[in-house]
């Protein structure tokens, strides 16, 4: 670089520095005003989002605790009053049934997607799985009604309800399983394959143990989602005032979300109490599942 060029470069740098500095000073006020505006909007948005949440939790907790009594757990619903034993047990068997179907199906689909599927096949399956997430739950309920309740003639039943719930839970389990497995470092997988270990055994002995907390988290979250669903069950499990009979077909099943959904509309304080108690139980259930799932995730990150 000649001296002339160097002098020219220095001159340009000086001019640019002055220009940028001056512009920065000019816009300082506008910038800070914009900063406050964004901060203000964000604060309003957070409050708007938090208020209903806090309100719901407070309302349900206050009314729910007031309605809590031992007989809720020991007696069944009669008309729009009585206890919740049938609904609690019904929710448990329905969610358990859904998990028994969706758990293995979802985990194996996730394993297939993460470890075996051709990229193009995987993309199609993933897309279908995402579509399933987007299907309104009432549509899944109607599907269950059309196919199982009337189509196969199972009537309102545990099997129809569990399958409808499973359909709803499935895509979440598939996705979390796939995610957990794709997060397993490729080096570990290659290390095993390079020892002459088959793909299947590598998945079983290396990938799955490493991904286990993530997969388990997904299963728990799916349980929470299943626990809180009403729509897939209305047309499939229907409702029953009696404790669930452990037969798959021709026997409707009661569940907590139905109590919340229906009883709050009744003009009786006894039914309102039942609805709030059911809501509180659901809230606690979902909260506990989420806390446990979160704990698992934190534990994994600590490793």
């Amino acid at each position, binding site marked *: 670089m000649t001296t002339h060029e160097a002098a020219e470069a220095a001159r340009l740098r000086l001019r640019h520095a002055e220009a940028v500095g001056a512009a920065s000073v000019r816009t300082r006020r506008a910038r800070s005003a914009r900063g406050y505006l964004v901060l203000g909007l964000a604060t309003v948005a957070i409050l708007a989002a938090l208020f209903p949440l806090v309100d719901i939790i407070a309302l349900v907790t206050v009314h729910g605790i007031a309605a809590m009594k031992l007989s809720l757990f020991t007696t069944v619903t009669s008309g729009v009053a009585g206890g919740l034993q049938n609904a609690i047990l019904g929710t448990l068997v329905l969610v358990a049934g859904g998990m028994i179907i969706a758990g293995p199906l979802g985990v194996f689909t996730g394993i297939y997607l993460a470890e075996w599927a051709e990229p193009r096949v995987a993309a199609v399956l993933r897309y279908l799985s995402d579509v399933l997430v987007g299907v309104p739950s009432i549509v899944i309920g109607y599907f269950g009604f059309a196919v199982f309740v009337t189509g196969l003639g199972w009537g309102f039943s545990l099997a129809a309800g569990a399958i409808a719930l499973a359909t709803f839970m499935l895509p979440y389990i598939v996705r979390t399983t796939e995610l957990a497995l794709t997060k397993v470092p490729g080096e570990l997988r290659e290390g095993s394959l*390079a020892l002459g270990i088959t793909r299947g055994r590598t998945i079983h002995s290396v990938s799955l143990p490493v991904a286990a907390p993530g997969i388990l988290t997904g299963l728990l979250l799916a349980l929470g989602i299943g626990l809180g669903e009403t729509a897939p069950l209305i047309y499939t499990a229907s409702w029953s005032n009696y404790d669930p009979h452990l037969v798959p077909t021709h026997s409707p099943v009661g569940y907590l979300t139905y109590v919340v959904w229906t009883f709050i509309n009744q003009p009786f304080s006894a039914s309102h109490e039942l609805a709030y108690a059911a809501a509180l139980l659901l809230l606690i259930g979902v909260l506990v599942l989420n806390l446990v799932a979160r704990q698992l995730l934190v534990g994994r990150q600590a490793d």
Partner: protein
Amino acid sequence: MTTETKTRTEAVARSRSYADEPAVAAIAAARAPRPEAERQKIRVDGLNVFFGPQQALYDVDISFPEQQVVALIGPSGCGKTTLLRTLNRMTELVPRSRHEGDVRLDGASIFGPEVDVVDLRRKVGMVFQRPNPFPMSILDNVTFGPRRHGVRNRALLGEIAEQSLRSAALWDEVKDKLNQSALGLSGGQQQRLCIARALAVQPEVLLMDEPTSALDPISTGKVEDLVRQLAETYTLVLVTHSLPQAGRVADRVAFLLSGRVVEEGTAQAIFTRPKDARTEDYLTGRLG
């Protein structure tokens, strides 16, 4: 390893090689030349490897003699790792990869229809750039391979573990904590554990992909000593970015550039009187 650190390591290796080039040659020359191998363990014939539309290797012909260390050297992206990973068919794990030509192990094609890739990888073991111990105990890491291959006898497993750890020069350091997590070991120890793990399935060939690039100088020295010892028993192929390392441990050296083997010969010949101008350019730091 990030590209940035990788380029840095390379730059360091390069600058050192430039300054120490006569020294590297001296190191290679000072080692007593080993007798010519009696037979070729692996023969590569007209190998082309493609990843999708990209070709990574062009007409590679090279042999790997039994019980010798062959170092593959060359600038980043020259295809040395691809060549290494083709020898145990790990390149197949990359979607849309394919090959032309042949690789023969003990005279038999590794691509033959009757070849079980699981069998091949047991015979042709591999050690990676970064130590990759499994998140389990030291003992379980070493016995992982034999157990998955069906060895059930606990006494035998223990014996294999001790033998493998001794061969990997790690036994004395870990014999009292075999049941502790492998992740608690230092980087150098982890890499030797990975070597022990590879030895435990009783391979005949050991492929090493820059096994010391993530290690400190002392650990590097230990692994290099180990490579020499292992050459008494195994056939070794070593990818390395460090020319001094190639000088210290290799019997033969192959220089690759843009997917082709430019030159191959004894370490002494390559380092003291390279035939190809490009080899000389690389060795003296003008290329790469």
